């Protein structure tokens, strides 16, 4: 790990300003991903700003009937929150499907959104990777790509976003609230928060340098059967090959987002009109234009069948 200076910020604006002043500065909250990457020198900040003393650790009902989730609410606390369990169970389920008990106790809501891909070539500093070293090439194309993206990828990068939580937030139409170094705040729809790789896979989200997430906002609850189903190589503590977050209505209409298939949670709203026609019709639209590799082509039928199972169970519950 490279040596760094350290400070503990007292207000969100102070934290944002502290990071904005230095191009190599980083925020640290749970640290469960950043510290790991620092050990590998994939991240090498010269200055680290601890945001754990900012408060921002409450889950509160908002005036519009929705929920305001502080950026520092730990994943385990959010999953166990009584309102989340009752009104947004797809979010509880997604959180509980991710990581381990120890990691969820530290990992935060904002940090979960900002975690980096686990593409093996991103972690292998001896190999080219456009995300880690822009312009060096993509080792995954033509390499081991079984766990990687089948849609929305580019010639520069086929990494997937590893978050389960973000997939549920995408289906819940969450918004990300931020503060910039000049004190200005804004809300970013979750659909626009994560980016597709294109020619700049190192740019993963819509935040400016020094812009700090202060909360995630959920709109009023959506009725229906909430489901998060994750398919992975072992029963626990593994990233998704495919995951599905869904809210299904009694008439078979609903919302669906997929994890483990793209550089961001994958939701195609236009396809949702066809959901009542079944998983085959829906996934044909949601995955139109998919370009899987020979290694990960299995993800397309897996996504369809996982959704089919969800729709079948939802019908039984309706």
């Amino acid at each position: 790990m490279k040596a760094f200076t350290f400070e503990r910020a007292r207000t969100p604006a102070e934290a944002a300003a502290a990071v904005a002043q230095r191009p190599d500065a980083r925020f640290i909250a749970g640290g469960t991903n950043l510290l790991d990457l620092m050990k590998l020198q994939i991240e090498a900040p010269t200055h680290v700003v601890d945001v754990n003393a900012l408060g921002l650790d409450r889950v509160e009902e908002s005036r519009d009937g929705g929920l305001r989730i502080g950026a520092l609410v730990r994943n385990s606390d959010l999953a166990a929150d009584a309102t989340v369990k009752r009104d947004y169970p797809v979010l509880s389920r997604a959180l509980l499907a991710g990581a381990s008990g120890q990691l969820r106790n530290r990992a935060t809501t904002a940090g979960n959104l900002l975690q980096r891909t686990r593409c093996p070539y991103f972690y292998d500093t001896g190999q080219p990777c456009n995300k880690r070293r822009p312009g060096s090439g993509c080792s995954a194309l033509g390499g081991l790509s079984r766990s990687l993206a089948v849609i929305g990828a580019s010639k520069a990068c086929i990494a997937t976003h590893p978050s389960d939580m973000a997939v549920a937030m995408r289906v819940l139409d969450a918004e990300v609230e931020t503060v910039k170094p000049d004190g200005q705040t804004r809300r970013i729809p979750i659909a626009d928060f994560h980016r597709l790789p294109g020619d700049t896979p190192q740019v993963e989200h819509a935040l400016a340098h020094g812009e700090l997430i202060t909360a995630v906002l959920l709109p009023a609850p959506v009725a229906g059967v909430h489901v998060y189903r994750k398919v992975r190589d072992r029963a626990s503590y593994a990233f998704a090959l495919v995951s599905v977050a869904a809210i299904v209505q009694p008439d078979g209409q609903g919302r669906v987002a997929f994890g483990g298939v793209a550089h961001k949670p994958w939701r195609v709203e236009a396809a949702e009109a066809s959901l009542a026609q079944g998983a085959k019709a829906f996934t044909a639209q949601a995955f139109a234009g998919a370009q899987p590799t020979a290694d990960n082509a299995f993800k397309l039928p897996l996504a369809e069948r996982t959704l089919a199972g969800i729709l079948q169970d939802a019908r039984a519950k309706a």
Partner: protein
Amino acid sequence: MDEVFGCLSRRDLLIASAGTATIPVAGAADDAPPAVGSPPGTMSRLTLEVNGKPQTVDVDNRTTLLDLLREQLKLTGTKKGCDHGQCGACTVLLDGRRINSCLMLAVMAPGAKVTTIEGLGVPGKLHPLQAAFIAKDGYQCGYCTPGQICSAVGMLDELQRGMPSHATADLAAKPLLSADELRERMSGNLCRCGAYSNIAEAITSVAGGAA
């Protein structure tokens, strides 16, 4: 066999030189500790409580909580396995909650209360989970055991507080420790010897007694 340097074995030498890395702090009045050979501002002084005892330490900012415990405070019960949060050998309780001490900077822990395996119980006065791991033979090589036990302490507390897991069928109901729940909740602790069945038995014996 240890290499021998005169009358000191290599092991003794390592222990002796590691000891000099602990900077004794008297008074702890100075916020900017001397940092010989370190770039300015890359060392910090902090006070935290470890196993009920206040500790004031000077650390390189890069020091993980795990390395602080093992290398400076000589609490070597907490083990370094993968050092990447994948194996759980470094599990300790931070303010009563189980965490991976390898994925937390020591400098982020001022004022924290840390409990390690040494703080749970001592020979003659073992924590019920320590006694149960011995009684049920919940290990082979023993390397993952401190992490398994600290994790189980935290896990049983989470269960007591009604926190759900991936294996919980009904989010509205208070979860009970079924075999599926135990396996899911302990999935962050790996045992390369594969002593899982006895580990599960040890934890179940304590959970059953507490219920």
